[in-house]
């Protein structure tokens, strides 16, 4: 808020800010203008869209929970350790955030593909083949979404008062018990925010999952893949699905802002 007041005092900076805002707002508003609202409901409930929406919800929810299950303990360790090793681990674990999603998909194939470093063993020993399955969609989503969760949650864990942990230890609580009864409840709203962030990223994931899991309707085709395919033959339908996903994303953002606000005033 403060920065905004300051920039508005300079007309040049103010003008640039207006251009920036319009640049972001224009496409968003245009989608809403161009959507054939008459077809809205019939498009959303059409078989192809319904199917991929269901797959998207299914995979993104599992991915968010998995990202939280794996990412929260890692974030806790990162928040409480400060050495060269932990800094390297942090950099590596948030790297998927800046990786081109397609590259992430290729990397997942290299690791878990049928001929992949890990995948080959999985197939030889247990006959498990991951690529082009729903599991592959989930793995791709976890891979790209977990960094967001780690960044958000580690920052929150760093603010937890170590004095409370000391107090809990003198009362006889083990580190694991302290984590679950003192640390986690005291940052619960922020953990939920991190989880929602990971879910939103998973829900919108496209590049890594289409590379690693393919776009098979009814099996691995998620909503973003569906939009991409629909756009090749029916642009108007693609607009409908896009506006739906846009509302979901903006809704999540709005809900999270409230979460963070209540978390801060506590």
């Amino acid at each position: 808020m403060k920065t905004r007041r300051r920039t508005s005092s300079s007309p040049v900076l103010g003008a640039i800010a207006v251009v920036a805002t319009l640049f972001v707002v224009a496409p968003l508003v245009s989608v809403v203008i161009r959507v054939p609202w008459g077809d809205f409901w019939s498009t959303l409930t059409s078989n192809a869209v319904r199917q991929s929406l269901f797959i998207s919800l299914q995979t993104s929810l599992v991915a968010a929970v998995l990202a939280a299950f794996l990412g929260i303990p890692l974030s806790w360790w990162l928040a409480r350790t400060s050495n060269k090793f932990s800094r390297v681990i942090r950099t590596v674990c948030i790297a998927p955030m800046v990786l081109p999603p397609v590259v992430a998909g290729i990397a997942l194939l290299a690791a878990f593909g049928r001929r992949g470093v890990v995948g080959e063993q999985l197939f030889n020993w247990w006959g498990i083949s991951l690529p082009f399955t729903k599991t592959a969609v989930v793995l791709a989503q976890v891979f790209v979404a977990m960094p967001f969760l780690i960044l958000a949650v580690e920052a929150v864990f760093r603010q937890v008062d170590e004095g409370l942990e000391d107090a809990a230890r003198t009362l006889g609580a083990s580190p694991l018990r302290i984590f679950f009864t003192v640390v986690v409840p005291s940052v619960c709203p922020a953990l939920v925010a991190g989880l929602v962030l990971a879910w939103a990223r998973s829900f919108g994931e496209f590049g890594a999952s289409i590379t690693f899991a393919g776009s098979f309707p009814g099996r691995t085709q998620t909503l973003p893949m569906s939009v991409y395919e629909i756009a090749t033959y029916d642009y108007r339908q693609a607009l409908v699905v896009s506006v739906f996903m846009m509302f979901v994303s903006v809704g999540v953002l709005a809900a999270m802002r409230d979460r963070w606000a209540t978390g801060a005033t506590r």
Partner: protein
Amino acid sequence: MTLSIVGDIGKGTHSLSVDFSIEPGEVVGIVGRNGAGKTTLIETIAGIVPMVTGSVAWNGTDWDNAVRKMWVSPEERRCAVVFQDLRLFPHMTAIQNVAFGLRARGVSKVEARHLAMQKLRVVGAEHLADRRASVLSGGEAQRVALARAIATDPAVLLLDEPLSAIDAASKESLREVVATVLQQFTGIALLVSHDPTDVATLASRTITLGAR
């Protein structure tokens, strides 16, 4: 069952030599100017800060021995602390705070709640049982912290300025509560205070830190 602490305590570049032992039933007042190391002494005994040199021993067992690399973690020392900043768990109710140590030591939920209620009664805070710790007033929180410390039946009770940050009116009644708790307590008690009246009325002997 003697508690003895001999050697240098401190954090960073500051360190301080101490050498004393305390018997059960004693209430030792710890006095000294600001920065003399009163809180550090408490944290050293509780196992939050390690000794620089020397050892902390209770009942003939080393809790902390810098030479022999002995270290008993705080959760296994039978110490309870009323911290100067209290450190109640803000997301829990008063009774959940008091029951926390009992639950951590394996007491059942029902039994822990029952025992916690008893301790709240001792400090005159049973009416606050289901109030969240974050909304308690200074004096109320102080009582709950005291109840939490005695709930686990510790061998060593460490009180860091239990009467500071309280307005004069509630200080008198709180001092009576602390006195009652200390009278009933059969273990070793250390009371850090900057107020000579507290030490004179509550402690059976006094140790001055940083005087030598």
